[in-house]
């Protein structure tokens, strides 16, 4: 046992003066800002995906969700270098020995536990979020959305507790020069290869490179430099595809000559062929597909207004709409289009994109496109509209 204790490094074995509260507090400040941004934009995204909206989700600006979700994912990428350097700067603390005094011991244990939760939750959020943005699901049972949402509360709670515990240290560190040594561990005196300012600038540079390397999936201007963007913005009609007709299992039904769209309100129901839909008054709206995985792309969609379709069965305004797809299974087989979207003039049942008939992979014969809405809910291959 003693041999093991001797082999484990001690806090005082770490001598670099870069591992200092002056550095940790400055990176921690930005990490706290970034975690707050991801938390708030995450709440928006989670709410937008709820089937019921006690407070209607706004339909304007139409690019709102595009911005919040692009910001959510991009800020998450920027957190990777920030978190890594932050953890590096406080790494000696991992080896702090517990105090002998019993009363201090309880407090020490509580703080260590809160730090453990903070680090575990922070790493979990970044890893699961970045995997999800790349549509990679290396876990087997838990659902991404529910778990990422729940752990977000754990992470932000642990951040707030951490700030409360460290507030005097943070205040002193941020109030003094970056080279101030008054709060340093006694052993942290060896000059680093970099200066403290140099390390901070390196961290900001890394976060900046992380943003530039990924943000092109939602910011068209950056497309060429974003070498790790999840797509290049190419696809039929200039928009990438998340789920193809083949993987949704709808290739046969979507191209069938007997396809009809059913629109119903109570007892009243009409069936429309694709030709019938083309015969209705057509609108063209420029609206983005804003994927929950962060990428987005704007397109010119053409088709009848959903409102006009519902007028065919005499549905009053202010009602939610159940949109059902030709897909036979899967979580996005159907979605609720809330009344705010249904009543919006810009909400279309799109038949075409960019002047061409809708590609099969974009939802042919028809798909829903509404302003300011997560892409995953913009149901493709629509077979039924049912007023609720």
């Amino acid at each position: 046992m003693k041999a093991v204790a001797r082999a484990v490094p001690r806090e005082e074995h770490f001598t670099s003066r870069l591992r200092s509260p002056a550095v940790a507090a400055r990176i921690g400040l930005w990490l706290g800002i970034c975690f707050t941004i991801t938390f708030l934009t995450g709440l928006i995204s989670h709410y937008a995906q709820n089937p019921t909206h006690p407070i209607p989700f706004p339909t304007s600006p139409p690019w709102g969700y595009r911005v919040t979700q692009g910001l959510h994912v991009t800020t998450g990428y920027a957190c990777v270098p920030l978190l890594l350097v932050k953890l590096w700067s406080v790494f000696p603390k991992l080896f702090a020995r517990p105090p002998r005094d019993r009363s201090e011991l309880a407090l020490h244990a509580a703080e260590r536990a809160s730090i453990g939760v903070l680090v575990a939750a922070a790493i979990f959020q970044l890893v699961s979020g970045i995997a999800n943005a790349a549509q990679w699901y290396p876990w087997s049972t838990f659902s991404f959305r529910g778990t990422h949402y729940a752990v977000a509360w754990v992470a932000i709670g642990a951040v707030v507790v951490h700030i409360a515990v460290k507030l005097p240290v943070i205040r002193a560190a941020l109030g003094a020069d970056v080279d101030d040594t008054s709060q340093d561990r006694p052993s942290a005196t060896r000059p680093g290869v970099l200066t403290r300012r140099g390390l901070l600038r390196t961290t900001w540079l890394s976060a900046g490179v992380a943003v530039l390397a990924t943000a092109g999936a939602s910011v068209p201007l950056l497309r060429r430099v974003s070498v790790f963007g999840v797509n290049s913005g190419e696809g039929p009609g200039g928009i990438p595809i998340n789920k193809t007709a083949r993987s949704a299992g709808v290739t046969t039904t979507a191209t069938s000559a007997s396809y009809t769209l059913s629109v119903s309100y109570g007892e009243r129901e009409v069936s429309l062929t694709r030709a019938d839909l083309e015969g209705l008054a057509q609108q063209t709206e420029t609206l983005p597909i804003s994927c929950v995985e962060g990428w987005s792309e704007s397109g010119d969609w053409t088709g009848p207004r959903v409102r006009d379709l519902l007028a065919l069965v005499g549905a009053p305004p202010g009602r939610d709409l159940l949109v059902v797809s030709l897909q036979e299974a899967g979580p996005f087989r159907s979605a609720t289009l809330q009344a705010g979207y249904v009543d919006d003039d810009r909400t279309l049942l799109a038949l075409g994109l960019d002047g061409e008939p809708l590609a099969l992979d974009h939802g042919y014969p028809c798909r829903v496109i509404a302003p300011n809405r997560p892409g995953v809910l913009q149901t493709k291959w629509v077979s039924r509209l049912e007023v609720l």
Partner: protein
Amino acid sequence: MRSRLALGAVGTVAGVYGAFLLLSRQQPEDWVEVAIWFAVGVVVHDFVLAPLMLVAGVVMVRVLPAAARAPAVVGLVVLGSVTLLAVPVLGGFGVVPDNPTLFDRSYLAGWAVLAGVVLAGVLAAALARRSRASSTTEEPDGARPGR
């Protein structure tokens, strides 16, 4: 002190709410898997990544001339952290064979370009530092804290 206690209470409530969401909306097998992922993240960082950085530091001091060390650290932090966040696209783990519109970049080529830019920057900075150090030999590199 009172404001810190209030802040701590707010954070605790938020964290407990998250734990409640985890427990109430998921099945026991999900809890186990989430717990495993929690632990794996910490273990990989604390016992793999962080010690690797310590080793990298020792190796760097032995191998690299003084003028190249600071640029090398900058390059390692930039390239290392950005490579880490690109692992899912570099590995192509989310690629669906019938969908050519996603993950449609050559990510390895992109990584090579990024690595080339970083390496060029490191080399240029190292050479600039060496020529500066040889013109002012009385100042050993890195020995001036607070610069």
